C-alpha cells in the first residue's frame, strides 16, 4: 500500500470534511421517477440544470429508460435504479425501449 505524504494527507482530510456538505447539496438537486404498472410517474418532471433524476423500477417486469442520443439505461429489473444528471437545459423526451408505449418527459430549465 502506498504511504500518504503529508500534503496528500491534508487534501484527504479536507475532502472528508467537505463531503457531507457536498452530499447535502446533491440531495436538494435530486428528483425521483417511479415506474409502476408500466407508467413513468410523474410522466412529466420540471427540474433545474444540474439536477440528478433517479428512476426506480417497481414492476415485476424489466424496463429501460432511453432518451435518443442523450441517455440509455441498462435493463432495470425489479427495484433497480438508473440516474442521470441533466447539465443542459431543454426538453428530454424518453421512453422504455422494451415497452415503447411507456413515455415520459423531463423539462430542464
Amino acid at each position, binding site marked *: 500500500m502506498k504511504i500518504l505524504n503529508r500534503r496528500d494527507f491534508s487534501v484527504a482530510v479536507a475532502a472528508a470534511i467537505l463531503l457531507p456538505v457536498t452530499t447535502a447539496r446533491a440531495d436538494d438537486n435530486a428528483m425521483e421517477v417511479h415506474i409502476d404498472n408500466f407508467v413513468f410517474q410523474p410522466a412529466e418532471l420540471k427540474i433545474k440544470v444540474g439536477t440528478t433524476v433517479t428512476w426506480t423500477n417497481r*414492476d415485476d417486469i424489466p424496463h429501460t429508460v432511453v432518451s435518443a442520443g442523450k441517455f440509455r439505461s441498462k*435493463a432495470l429489473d425489479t427495484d433497480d435504479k438508473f440516474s442521470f444528471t441533466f447539465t443542459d437545459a431543454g426538453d428530454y423526451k424518453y421512453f422504455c425501449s*422494451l415497452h415503447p408505449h411507456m413515455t415520459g418527459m423531463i423539462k430542464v430549465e
Partner: protein
Amino acid sequence: MSGHDHGEDGVSRRNVLECMTWAGTGVLWTITGGVPRSLGIIDSAEAATAAAPGMTFLQISDSHVGFDKPANPNALGTLEEAVGKINAMPTKPSFMIHTGDITHLSKASEFDNADRIISQSKLDVHYVPGEHDFLDEEVKFYRERYGRGTKGQGWYSFDAGGVHFIGLVNVVDLKGGGLGNLGAEQLAWLEDDLRGKSKSTPVVLFAHIPLWTVYPEWGWGTEDGGRALEYVKGFGSVTVLNGHIHQVMQKVEGNVTFHTARSTAFPQPAPGTAPSPGPMKVEDAKLRSMLGVASINFKQNEQRLAIIDTPLQS
C-alpha cells in the same frame, strides 16, 4: 376465452376427435376453406384415440426462464412441465417453434437453463427472439445460440411438410410511443423471400409480438405488421403465430388466421382488465390452467390447419 372469433359449430363430436392430435384438454381450432371454427373443449381421454395424418408442429412461447416473482416463483419448473406434456404426446411432432422471451433477463445462465430443459423434447426448435432475449449489454447471447444462418437481427425462413415458415423479429429498434417494429430491411427481405412462391403454398409467419393490433394501449401490436401482411395477401392459407401477450387469442381475416399462444411462465390479463399488462398473480391452483403450449396440424392438399391450445393442467 374472450377474443376468439367464434363461428357456429356445425361439427359433430366425432369429427372433432378425428381432428385431434393432442392427448390433452384444449380448445381445438380447425380451418376449412380458410374459415376456422372453434370446436369447443375436448376431453383428454377420448381425444387421445385419434391421430391425424399430415404434419404436426408445436408452438411454445414466453418461457421467461429466470422469472421468480409471485406470479410464478418457478418459471423453469413450469417450462419443464410443458416439455413433459410434449414428450407425452401420442404422435411426435415434426419440430417446435419458440416465439420468444426464452429468458427473463437475457442472462447466459438463463439461456443455458432454458436450453437444458427444451432440449429434453429432442425436437428441432426454431426460435425468434422476444424483447427479453436482447437485454444483455452486447446483445450476443441470443445470437450466439440461435442466430446462426439468420439474416439481419435474426429473421429467416424454411420449408417443412410443404409449408413455408417465416420467422420474423419485431422487438428491435422500437420507437417511443410506438409498437413492435419489423423495419424496412426486414420487410424488403420478406418481400423477396416470398417472390416466386406458388400462391397455393401455405405460409406460416411467426414472431414474438402480435403482428396484428391486439391492444395498442398496452403496446400489443406491430407498427408495420400490416406491410408484412400485404406481402402474403395473395396466398391461399396464411397462419400468423405470436406470443408476448401470455394468453390465447385468435382472429381471422380472409385467408389469414392470427393466433397467440399461452406462456409457460405466467399469465397476463386480458386487454384493459388490469392497470397494466404485467404478470398476473392467480391462485396457485389456477396457475397451470393459464399456462400451456399450442399444437398445430396441417394436412396437405386440404389447406386445413388445426391449432390446439393445451394448458399444463385443465
